[in-house]
């Protein structure tokens, strides 16, 4: 309490001392992070602007419902919550590393930085899986009067409105035979392996009957901007995580080489920590904008 009283009584602007009571590097890190906030903010706000300009936007719970190893089970929000907790925990271990630095505890810094790096790497692994799953996913859609099978890319979005039965019936007649074979093969996810029908040998009319239209949940193509914003913003955030991991590895090596011990303080860990927390902070908003609302 005496500390607080002294802070308030100090005349910070009378000269002879820094009115910010903070070393140069750390203050500049704060200003860098503030400018980065505006960069991310601009991206997310532009996404919001486009989203508000559309009559339809895909429901995130429909888009992000996969979990590694769970096959086609419908698990909305599950995987992204794992990613969120990984980042929160790695933020906590970073706080502990910074605190160990304040106490000039080299072993503590090494230990907690190590766990922070593991957390960052785990997050990047999760993101790689998620991107791969979205891009290589196979979704039946109705586009340009034909049926097609696509993944989520920056050029097409497979999560538009559910297509009307009448439109599907018309489109199926205009769909090339190779696509009909693929659709028929796709239809049997639930009973895969039970029957090995050679769809390619069926005549067109039989082939069309073999397609499980109900089970495919055929949709129209959704807003194209979805992919660009999703991959652009999570990619930019992932790039921040990646550079954060590199910075943390550098800090770990410098700690082990006693660079900070010789310097007499671990302020660099504090600056790296600020950056790492910022990465977590941005994720909180990415999580909100892309997955929750």
């Amino acid at each position, binding site marked *: 309490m005496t500390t607080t009283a002294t*802070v308030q009584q100090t005349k910070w602007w009378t000269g002879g001392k*820094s009115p910010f009571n903070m*070393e140069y590097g750390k*203050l500049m890190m704060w200003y860098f992070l503030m400018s980065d906030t505006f960069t991310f903010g601009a991206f997310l*706000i532009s996404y919001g602007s486009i989203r508000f300009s559309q009559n339809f936007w895909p429901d995130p719970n429909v888009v992000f419902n996969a979990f590694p190893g769970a096959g086609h089970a419908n698990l909305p929000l599950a995987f992204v919550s794992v990613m969120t907790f990984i980042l929160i925990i790695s933020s906590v271990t970073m706080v502990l590393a910074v605190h160990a630095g304040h106490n000039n505890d080299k072993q503590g810094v090494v230990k907690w930085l190590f766990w922070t790096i593991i957390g960052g790497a785990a997050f990047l692994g999760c993101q790689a899986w998620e991107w791969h799953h979205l891009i290589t996913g196979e979704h039946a859609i109705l586009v340009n009067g034909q049926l097609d099978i696509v993944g989520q890319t920056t050029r097409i979005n497979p999560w538009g409105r559910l297509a009307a039965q009448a439109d599907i019936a018309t489109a199926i007649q205009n769909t090339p035979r190779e696509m009909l074979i693929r659709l028929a093969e796709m239809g049997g996810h639930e009973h895969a392996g039970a029957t090995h029908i050679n769809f390619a040998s069926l005549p067109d009319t039989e082939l069309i009957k073999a397609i499980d239209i109900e089970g495919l949940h055929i949709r129209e193509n959704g807003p194209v901007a979805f992919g660009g914003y999703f991959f652009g913003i999570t990619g930019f955030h992932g790039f921040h995580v990646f550079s954060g991991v590199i910075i943390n590895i550098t800090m770990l090596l410098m700690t082990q080489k006693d660079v900070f011990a010789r310097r007499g303080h671990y302020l660099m860990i504090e600056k790296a920590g600020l950056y790492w927390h910022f990465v977590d902070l941005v994720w909180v908003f990415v999580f909100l904008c892309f997955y*929750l609302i």
Partner: protein
Amino acid sequence: MQHPAFEEVTFHHHSDDVTFKKKVKNTTILLSVITVVELIIGLTIYNIHKGDAPNALLVLMFKGMVCILTSAKAYYIVSVFMHLGDEIRNVIMTIVVPLLLFIWFITAFIWDGNSYKNLRNRYDAHYKEKSVIPAKH
């Protein structure tokens, strides 16, 4: 413990290990709880959407709640984990005051997007018909 690298720092903040650990532990629990609540709300929204007649106002209300919870999370990360709350007022103000620009930024651009949608729906009936969600599917 005045050190050449600390020249700018007139005053050091000290917190003993016990207080610090307690604060970090409490904040971690708080962030986790808020995240779990957010997930529950997210799933609630999902179930409302799945229903026959999604109540737009209810969905909007839940989305608003998630936004408020996220702001709370951001506050705790910045204030406790990044220690901004422990800095002196001068620093806090140079960081926080510029961020007020976001109030205009968010309002103006969301408004703009919404207005674009309304104008297009009004003047392009074909577009509206093509893109408004059918009641049943």
